[in-house]
């Protein structure tokens, strides 16, 4: 599903590489946690996957799409196939919960009827039923993050990338978000999660890829956190 082959990314020559020949293979329906200190290269890795950045060297293939052959004008199409969740939610403050989720469908030309049909279902998955009319500012951080997850999955992407989704949340809300991610993974979506929350990593018992100084230093199944 996700294949990285000796991928490097250098922003400026005198800074050294942010990612140094990383290879990673993620199977469909897998749940992979990427851990590492701040500055280890986690965010760069995710930005490469969403094609916000281009690799300096190496090959990336996601869902059969070879990034080398991807033209700029096809980037929107790629992003429609990948759901992304961010630490700072990135919700539109002037739209309510329903509209925020619907937005992801509007931009790809889904009819209003279909939107009215789909959005409530997705809000139910993330346990936000009944909060459709709330504005983002009226919600807790955990709820906002679940809105963001709903928006990311409403188009049924095969891959969900979550970049520190619990970074701004207290433990209870963080756990709510993680449970939603697990649920989505059970429904068949590949999930790639970055975090540095030790407790979450230990509790989840999933495959853990550890990145340090731009390199993969360990990759093990059912792992706990070691640093």
């Amino acid at each position: 599903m996700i294949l990285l082959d000796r991928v490097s990314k250098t922003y400026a020559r005198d800074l050294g590489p942010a990612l140094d020949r990383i290879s990673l293979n993620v199977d469909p329906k897998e749940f992979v946690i990427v851990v590492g200190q701040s500055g280890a290269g986690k965010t760069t890795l995710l930005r490469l996957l969403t094609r916000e950045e281009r690799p300096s060297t190496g090959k990336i293939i996601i869902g059969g799409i070879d990034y080398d052959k991807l033209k700029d004008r096809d980037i929107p199409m790629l992003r429609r196939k990948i759901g992304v969740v961010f630490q700072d939610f990135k919700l539109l403050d002037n739209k309510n919960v329903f509209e925020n989720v619907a937005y992801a469908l509007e931009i790809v030309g889904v009819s209003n009827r279909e939107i009215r049909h789909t959005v409530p279902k997705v809000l139910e998955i993330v346990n936000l039923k009944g909060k459709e009319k709330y504005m983002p500012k009226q919600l807790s951080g955990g709820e906002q993050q679940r809105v963001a997850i709903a928006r990311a999955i409403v188009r049924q992407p095969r891959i969900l990338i979550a970049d520190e989704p619990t970074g701004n949340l207290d433990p209870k809300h963080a756990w709510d978000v993680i449970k939603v991610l697990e649920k989505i993974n059970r429904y068949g979506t590949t999930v790639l999660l970055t975090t540095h929350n030790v407790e979450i990593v230990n509790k989840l018992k999933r495959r853990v890829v550890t990145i340090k100084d731009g390199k993969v230093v360990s990759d093990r199944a059912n792992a706990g956190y070691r640093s």
Partner: protein
Amino acid sequence: MKRRLITLWRVIHTGILNFMRNVTLATAAIAVMVVTLTIVLFSLIANATFANTIAQITDKIDISVFLKDSDTPAQTKQLIGQIKKLPNVKSVDYLDKAAALKQYEQQNAGNQQLLTAIDETTNPLPATILIKPVDLNRIQDIKTFLVKPSVASLQSDQPSYSGDRKQAIDKITHATDVLRKIGIITVAVFAVICALIIFNTIQMAIFNRRDEIGIMRLLGASTGYIRGPFIVESMIYGILSAVFSIVIVNSAFLASSNALQATSLGLLDINYANQYFDAHFWQLFALQLVLGIVLGAVSATIATRRYLKFKTK
């Protein structure tokens, strides 16, 4: 196809919403556009009015050729035929003696003295050929023909050229040329200013919405979907400006005809300008709309291309 229509509608809808959110920002752009379109409109009307004035005066000018009473109908007919073949002749009319007298009587209907001096039995008026030239500036050919001995011998008097009007025509033609040039330059300058202000407005709008645009991109919105609303917004500037501009010009005409009872402003025939405006109202309005929309759309297209960077690093 259905998806495309839905998307198109959403782009338009978003553009309208953004416009309403952005009205204060748009004021400057609309104001300059109104000025630009108003200048265009005035130039068009002035141009048409001058053209009309010239045409009217030109139409009144003719060359009269006075025939001798002794000319035979065959000679007259032949002469008319020859004149008709000359280049630059628009029309040829023939007045026989009786018709010439009739015209004289009509022209002097108020003056009994002049009328009694002439009666039908003594009718001293010669039969006359009236020539209307196409172009007043090139009547030399006609003149040359009329003074040829064989032609001159048929005439009772020197031909008359109502040439004193030519000066007036030259003056108006010249004024029209100058005005047209000034009009084109002014319109061009204002169009550029207008485009620059629209650039600026859109740049600010893009800056205000940069977070939203970033999110749209990450969600996979296409370039057109991000860009479209800005273009729609600028097209709305164009539509509103066209409406304001035509309202302003309309009010100006109302004011001038009501308050001043003015019939002319220097060389400009206000009555005709007013008539022309009324008669061509919808065409002029449509033209304003098209100009406004095109100006808005082109500026916005260039501005979004410049300020929305679509490529990844």
